[in-house]
């Protein structure tokens, strides 16, 4: 497939994630939209790694493998981030009994 299809698909997913972050107030949904944006970037990295492999396979048999390893490390970081972030959201819910991010502006009180 031409790589620009993948570019536009990733852009669409990324922008949907941004719109979700901007329009929703539920902290968990905002968090899920961030995951969506990470996945859009992952898809683009894999498409670029396959494009690079096709272009440079004659010189180097493993050309483009770095892109897929980057995706693997992004998934590692995302898993760690989700566990800490959800713990913070649970603690916020325990304290103010809501997941509305607008209540977070009273965090200092």
């Amino acid at each position, binding site marked *: 497939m031409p790589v620009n299809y993948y570019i536009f698909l990733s852009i669409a997913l990324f922008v949907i994630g941004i719109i979700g972050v901007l329009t929703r107030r*539920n902290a968990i949904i905002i968090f899920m939209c961030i995951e969506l944006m990470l996945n859009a970037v992952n898809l683009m990295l894999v498409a670029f790694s396959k494009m690079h492999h096709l272009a440079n396979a004659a010189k180097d048999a493993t050309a483009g493998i770095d892109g897929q390893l980057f995706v693997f490390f992004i998934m590692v970081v995302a898993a760690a981030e989700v566990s800490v972030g959800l713990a913070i959201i649970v603690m916020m819910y325990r304290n103010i009994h809501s997941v509305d991010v607008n209540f977070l502006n009273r965090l200092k009180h």
Partner: protein
Amino acid sequence: MTITQILFWVLSALTVFSALMVVASRNPVHSVLWLIFTFFCISGHYILLNAQFLFIVNIIVYAGAIMVLFLFVIMLMNLNESSEPKKNRWLRMAGVVAGGCLLLVFVAALKNVDIRKQVAETNTGDIGLIENLGRALFNEYVVPFEISSILFLSAMVGTVVIGKKE
């Protein structure tokens, strides 16, 4: 139209539709379920690109572990449509317009780049197989791999400390 192209378009349409449903659903549980469906569609794209290791990791880590964690937290808080915070309609419209402007900028910037005639290899190529990825991971990327284990350990300690009751 080859079968790969048909699969690509069907998967792309499903991915974008389910991603839109994640944002549009009123009920948080429905949002999580749509997000799991989105991750499965993205895994389908990985299979089309012959990235088999990432396909299985995406299913196990994202659709399996992370989304179950989200679902557990939502059930723990007993969130549903009635507890959904209401937002000003104008603010929501402003968010959609801002996102649309970003989409416009991205598309306008990337419409005519030189890269668009390049092709991403589908169905063939063996860089996505576990054998090759594992060899690269444990030779060139062994230090980041070990550091990520420290990251996991610190995330685990942080989660326990934050989640502890007083």
